[in-house]
């Protein structure tokens, strides 16, 4: 064991580079003139993510590597999820970097003189860039963590910046701050649940490492009640992050209140990180106690799919609707966790990549639809978008069809893969519910398309701003990835198949 008691900097490099970039970003806040900060921060963030991705590519062929005194496991799934998070973050930062999304001064009371003067000086909270990088580092650590303490640290590192960022909206600031507070409070509860569960698991196994807990599960001599309680509460902490029913109540409010680029980033990247951790815990640690958790997780998956897709129908706000849709997708992803086979792992990884890009693209488009008072998220006012800006509307429709899982989009291949894995593992009931909820979900995605193309034009001053080059690149690349992953997913699937084994 002594040989692994070293940090293994090369394996940790991707995470540490991102953390380093974040620290530099903080220094820039302190020493660079306010006017130039936005550009410099943007470049630093993009460059950091790029370098981190390169260093990740260098270790992509590792089959097994423990690092940081066994508390981090850089195996195939971890590398893939870190890569996915970095890619998503890269394009999310491009959208975040577009002007006008963030408040001039977060500390100023909304509506006050102080706020007005801050707006007039053209300031902007550029701290959002280092915050994003911190969150990214936490997200990268989350699916790689191999003991409960690291897992908890990663959970907090990724969550705290997100709580802050959710409250930074430039417009409707009270709404945004309320969302941030709600997210923070509920998030804090869920962290507490997680810790509570971790303590019980320690009581069960006298170990905080996933491998140690797994050994106790196989051993079968330890106290099963502790295992059940620990399992339950740790799961609650994680299921909260992915927005599974009944721990989903924060999702619509936070998605709606947060600045749209942050919502996109959060929706896409947090899901990858949280499902990464969820997969590792259930596959690695509790895989041999499957009869203890599969029934309850099955019920949660079914509820999540149904509630997400049914409640989404009643939504009149596009961001709230996508929030419920993300809940439904969390349910689809949970079927991959339930499958508990290699196909399930591979399918979930693929789905996360596909879903991440669709989400970034969709929220990127939402940032573009505005009137003089800011973004328009009321669905009724999207009427006639198809006529005013056919290209943007077509792209958004494509993302919606991908969410709905229509063939020739990445969403379809993902859905097919994940349902196949679940069917193969014998959970046919979940597949049937999944298929039915996809049919329900199709209804509200299509309703948006109807709104954009077929509803009578209203005379509101709805405009689509000409996207800045950065946002343009982000949304069109997301569209292209969605198409390519839908038409020719073979290279990515083959790559995933070589990676999709968890190492204990």
């Amino acid at each position, binding site marked *: 064991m002594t040989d692994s008691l070293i940090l293994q900097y090369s394996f940790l490099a991707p995470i540490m580079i991102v953390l380093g970039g974040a620290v530099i970003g903080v220094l820039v806040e302190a020493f660079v003139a306010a006017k130039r900060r936005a550009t410099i921060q943007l470049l630093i963030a993009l460059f950091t993510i790029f370098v981190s991705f390169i260093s990740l590519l260098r270790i992509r062929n590792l089959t097994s590597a423990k690092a940081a005194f066994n508390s981090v496991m850089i195996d195939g799934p971890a590398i893939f999820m870190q890569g996915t998070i970095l890619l998503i973050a890269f394009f999310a930062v491009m959208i975040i970097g577009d002007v006008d999304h963030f408040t001039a001064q977060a500390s100023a009371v909304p509506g006050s003189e102080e706020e007005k003067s801050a707006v007039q000086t053209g300031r902007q909270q550029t701290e959002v860039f280092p915050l994003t990088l911190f969150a990214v580092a936490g997200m990268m650590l989350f699916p790689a963590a191999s003991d409960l303490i690291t897992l908890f640290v990663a959970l907090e590192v990724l969550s705290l910046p997100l709580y802050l960022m959710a409250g930074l909206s430039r417009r409707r600031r009270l709404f945004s701050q309320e969302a941030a507070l709600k997210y923070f409070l509920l998030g804090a509860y869920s962290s507490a649940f997680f810790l509570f569960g971790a303590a019980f698991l320690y009581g069960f196994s006298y170990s905080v490492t996933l491998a140690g807990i797994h050994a106790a599960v196989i051993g079968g001599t330890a106290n099963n009640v502790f295992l059940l309680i620990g399992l339950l509460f740790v799961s609650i902490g994680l299921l909260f992050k992915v927005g599974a029913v009944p721990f989903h109540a924060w999702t619509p409010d936070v998605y709606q209140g947060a600045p749209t680029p942050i919502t996109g980033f959060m929706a896409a990247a947090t899901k990858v990180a949280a499902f990464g951790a969820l997969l590792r815990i259930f596959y690695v640690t509790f895989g041999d106690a499957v009869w203890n958790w599969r029934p309850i997780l099955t019920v949660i998956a079914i509820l999540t799919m149904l509630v997400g897709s049914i409640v989404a129908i009643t939504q009149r706000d596009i961001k709230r609707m996508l929030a419920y849709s993300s809940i439904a997708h969390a349910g689809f992803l949970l079927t991959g966790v339930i499958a508990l086979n290699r196909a399930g792992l591979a399918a979930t990884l693929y789905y996360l990549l596909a879903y991440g890009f669709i989400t970034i693209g969709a929220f990127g488009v939402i940032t573009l639809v505005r009137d003089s008072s800011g973004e328009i998220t009321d669905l009724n006012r999207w009427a006639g978008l198809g006529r005013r800006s056919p290209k943007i509307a077509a792209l958004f429709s494509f993302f919606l069809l991908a969410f709905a899982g*229509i*063939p020739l989009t990445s969403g379809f291949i993902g859905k097919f893969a994940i349902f196949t894995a679940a069917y*193969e593992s014998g959970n046919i009931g979940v597949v049937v519910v999944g298929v039915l909820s996809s049919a329900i979900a199709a209804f509200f995605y299509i309703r948006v398309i109807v709104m954009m193309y077929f509803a009578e034009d209203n005379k509101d001053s709805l405009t689509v701003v000409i996207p800045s080059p950065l946002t343009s690149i982000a949304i069109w690349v997301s569209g292209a990835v969605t198409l390519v992953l839908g038409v020719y997913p073979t290279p990515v699937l083959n790559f995933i198949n070589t990676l999709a084994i968890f190492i204990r």
Partner: protein
Amino acid sequence: MKYLTSLMLLPLLGAILISTLPKNKSNYAKWVALLTSIVVALLGLLIALRFEIDRPGFQFVENYSWIPSFGINYSLGIDGIALVLILMSVILVPIVIVAGWHESEGGRWGSKSFYVLILILETMMIGVFAATDVFLFYVFFEAMLIPVYFLIGGYGVGERAAAAVKFLLYSLFGGLLMLAAIIGIYVISGNQGGHTFDIEKLSQLTIDSTTQNFLFLGFFIAFAIKAPLWPLHTWLPDAAKSATPGTSVLLLGVLDKVGTFGMIRYCIKLFPESSKTFTPVIIALALISILYGAFLAIGQKDIKGLIAFTSISHFGFITMGIFAMTTQGHSGATLYMVNHGFSTAALFLVAGWISARRGSSTIADFGGLQRVTPVLAWTFFIAGLSSLALPGLSSFVSEFLVLVGTYTRYPVAAVIGTLGIVLAALYILIPVQKALHGPITPGNENLPDITRRERIAIAPVIAVIIFLGFYPKPLLDVINPASIATLTAAGFSDPVPAAGGK
């Protein structure tokens, strides 16, 4: 030469070409679309000529690995049934384009998008009939809905958006049920010697009867929505009333055939035992469709609604022919699919022209057209006669074959089905007598008769209807071996006729 892939690529290239046309040149869009579709039709005819009737199995086979980790292949191939349906599709597309030369102008968007959608649809229509990989079939089956959705919602009339959504949701629901069944059979194939989507390999699996029944239903419900069978038909009349005539032709003439084609290719081929189990129910539903569609057609005030309900009746005949599980039934049903495509095309196109002239699609408004616009009225009459299966016109042969094929196994059903023919006479002749031959409705006095463009469009359709009415042999020669092969593989044999056999 990769015939089938070329056949699919050509319309797609045409669509790309049209979408790159500059704005001020968008007049060329319809010409590009027309030329493309004519080239496609010619290539389709070439394929038909090179098709070897006596060779069993799929021809023009192409096979490439597509997504190997799921055992998915891009594999194409056609048998006689697929060939005639592809042929019908590629012939109908240029006709639809010529017939609806100005159709794209009443839309929400320009004519460019209209023709791009039509050509993309053509690619997918060919693909759905040519695919021999179940996954590939499903991709076309679902993706096809999107262009149709925009064609109805964007260029239709009346409650077009609602009709488009209804159509899409119905179809998606069916499609997703089918997806679950496809996943099911795929997983079973994985347990029996390797994951595959190859239709031939899948048809050799042994599946226990309960599972087979569920999987069969997954496929069948999807197809019964597509080729609307009572009680899953309610989307069709709405869609047909709202769509442009050209779109309706493609929708009822080609797309809905995917349903009946799927019943032969997938339901019976993959799940022969379940097909047998469910036959009584399906025959009953088919009979209800025949009579229900016919009765409602009689009561229709709207000409497009009338044609939609007659189609429901016709699809009942086709489904009955398929599930009679006799070679005459199958051949008749396949021929019926082709004939119904052309006779519906004729009805819809002429009805569309008349409605456009009159500015209304209510039958009562067409009074006296026989005198004002004799050629149009006669064309409608011939199309109507074909639809009611008058001997000498194409539908007669197929309807006769279906009834004979059904009688040898289910005499009662065949007898009841015959009532459908009587009702057909009513629903066609009553409107013709009351409206076309009736007194001239005020406002109809100066309606112009058929134009040259319209003549060019309708002439080939009428020619095909009459030709196939007198000489269906070329088609039947192609269809028969495929029908026999399907039934033999599924383990059905024709019952020996009871009378005269002694």
